[in-house]
């Protein structure tokens, strides 16, 4: 204990442990959906570790990248395949847990006051994670890596005035090629992880200040905590988390060993070739819904692009679109209906996003895209109805 005293005098570790863990209280009326924050941290750690091992053998050069991944890492390095599978599946599953984490926040109104900063930093983390996934997907330098990057960077061309120059600036050339690969590599392994770490810290700090939301949306007062209405983060909350993590890891490593193909597209095992466009180009599954919004307005590329940007950014404004004083969806029947329509629509768009956008699929995509926005546009209206009802009821 002497060492702890010594450390405590200099770093106030005891106080830190109290504030962060043992005397940080989490409400009792939460379900396991509140575990997904911890699961995201777990997947993030898995991605960091597997990423570092891949970094030791990966070569960010258009002539070497494909072979360094598919030969050196996948065949020659001991357990190199394990790190690649883990990293690829990890990236995919990161978005699964992110989506569930966000959907839980939306359902239970976790974005509402006083948690706006938690929501905004979380949103920024989602965008950063998307950028990390997008830049990382180029690195194996396969056909799908190449053409996904080519297609998505082309989108910037539509931006008025600066578009065409901007595209060249992003790619470092007129087409996606070596310069693009090297800069995406730099962003993927340095800048983006750094920003992710910083914003994760702010996100967690903000949660420590305002506390976790719960199923009913009420807030824990200081008295509640003393009366035992909350549970301490350590050891009580984390005791449950470890069990959830173990079960999650069973699922995760089942995918890594036996069901990894969804995370590594077949077409990406053909080396990038700028002269040969694949028959079907599609992003990884986690971008499909947004991609479908882009394609949904099939009659106008410009409209599609605006809708696409809107679909990605509107989520950030939830706290100001939904001004109802009732927090949790558990007590908001109208909101709940809209929420489930939104979830179903998101799933629908994800599935459509991979199908060829022709005939019926194109129209379904259009309808799905409209429904996507209806959820957000309905929020102010639902808020007004609920406010009226509350005023009348009192």
């Amino acid at each position, binding site marked *: 204990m002497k060492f702890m005293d010594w450390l405590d005098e200099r770093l106030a570790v005891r106080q830190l442990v109290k504030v962060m863990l043992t005397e940080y209280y989490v409400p009792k009326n939460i379900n*396991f959906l509140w575990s997904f924050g911890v699961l995201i941290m777990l997947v993030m750690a898995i991605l960091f570790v597997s990423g570092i091992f891949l970094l030791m053998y990966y070569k960010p050069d258009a002539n070497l990248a494909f072979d360094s991944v598919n*030969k050196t890492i996948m065949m020659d390095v001991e357990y190199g395949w394990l790190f690649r599978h883990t990293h690829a599946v990890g990236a995919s599953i990161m978005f*699964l847990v992110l989506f*569930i984490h966000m959907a839980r926040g939306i359902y239970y109104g976790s974005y509402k006051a006083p948690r706006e900063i938690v929501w905004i930093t979380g949103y920024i983390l989602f965008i950063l994670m998307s950028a990390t996934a997008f830049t990382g997907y180029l690195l194996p330098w396969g056909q799908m890596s190449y053409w996904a990057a080519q297609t998505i960077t082309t989108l910037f061309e539509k931006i008025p005035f600066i578009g065409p120059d901007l595209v060249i600036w992003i790619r470092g050339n007129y087409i996606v090629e070596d310069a693009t690969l090297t800069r995406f590599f730099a962003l993927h392994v340095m800048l983006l992880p750094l920003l992710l770490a910083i914003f994760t810290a702010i996100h967690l700090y903000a949660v420590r200040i305002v506390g976790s939301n719960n199923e009913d949306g009420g807030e824990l007062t200081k008295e509640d905590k003393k009366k035992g209405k909350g549970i301490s983060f350590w050891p009580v909350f984390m005791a*449950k988390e470890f069990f959830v993590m*173990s079960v999650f890891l069973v699922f995760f490593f*089942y995918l890594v*060993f036996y069901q990894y193909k969804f995370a590594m597209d077949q077409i990406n*095992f053909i080396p990038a070739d700028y002269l040969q466009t694949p028959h079907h180009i599609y992003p990884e599954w986690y971008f499909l819904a947004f991609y479908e919004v882009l394609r949904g307005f099939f009659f106008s590329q410009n409209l599609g692009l605006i809708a696409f940007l809107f679909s990605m950014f509107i989520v950030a404004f939830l706290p100001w679109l939904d001004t109802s004083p009732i927090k949790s969806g558990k007590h908001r029947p109208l909101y709940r209906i809209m929420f489930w329509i939104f979830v179903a629509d998101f799933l629908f768009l*994800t599935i459509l996003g991979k199908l060829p956008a022709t005939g019926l699929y194109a129209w379904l995509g259009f309808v799905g895209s409209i429904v996507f926005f209806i959820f957000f546009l309905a929020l102010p209206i639902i808020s007004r109805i609920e406010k009226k009802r509350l005023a009348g009821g009192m």
Partner: protein
Amino acid sequence: MKELKILLILIVLVLIGYWGIEPYAHSVMHGEVKQPDHTYKDVPKNIPTTGDPVKGKELFTTNCASCHGLKNDGVNPGMDIQTSITSFKVVPPDLSNIGAILDEHFLAYFIKNPQDATKNPKFAMPPMAQLSDEDIGHVVAYLKSVTKKDLTGKEITVEACGRCHSIKYQKVLSDTPKEPLKEYLGKVPPDLSVIGKAKNVEYLETFINNPQNTLPGTSMPRLGLTKESTEKVVTYLDQIADPHRDQRNTLGIWVIGYLLFMAGITFAWKKKIWKNIH
């Protein structure tokens, strides 16, 4: 109970999504893979595939050996690689084991009309119009008599595919250099090192059986491999693309077993900590 209900909803949503983006999307995009036709129905079966190997050898020496070698029987090609590249843009293969690799009816018809047999109008070998059907029977009999038995997947792959395709992760380079191949076929044929990961086994079998069926307009010729050789080639390509399969399957069991054990322990710990919490 509530927790399990939530879990069930999550599982159902994830499964619907998975079904949509994997099996369903792939069936829409690629359609169903046609069954390979290993009997080569369209190939006429009236050319004899038996005859006198000795006569066959004579005919081979006068008609084929100016371009093709046959190492098994000590026959060297009459042409060096450079000359054959200049004349054909592709190196004519050594025919030592061709009698075992190809379907015999296909082989006979191929000698008579290579362009139609391969479904490739630009196929480099000219039709052997000077040979009668009977002669062809002798040649086929000769080719079958000299061939090695029990060829491995690698041997068949290298002999059947190696004049155009490289397998660079196995240190196999195509017999013909890239530049003439590009002139001959319009592009450099893909390297086969990880083709087993880029394509399904079923797709590869059908594609090798008749490339035009799956990829109309491709410059890859139909080669007339027997069912057995096709399967050996595909198994080989699948194996070299995924060399750590056994290690992965074994390790997976250990890792998942360990994690299940951990789940048990952590569940017990959770029970203990939460005993007094209501």
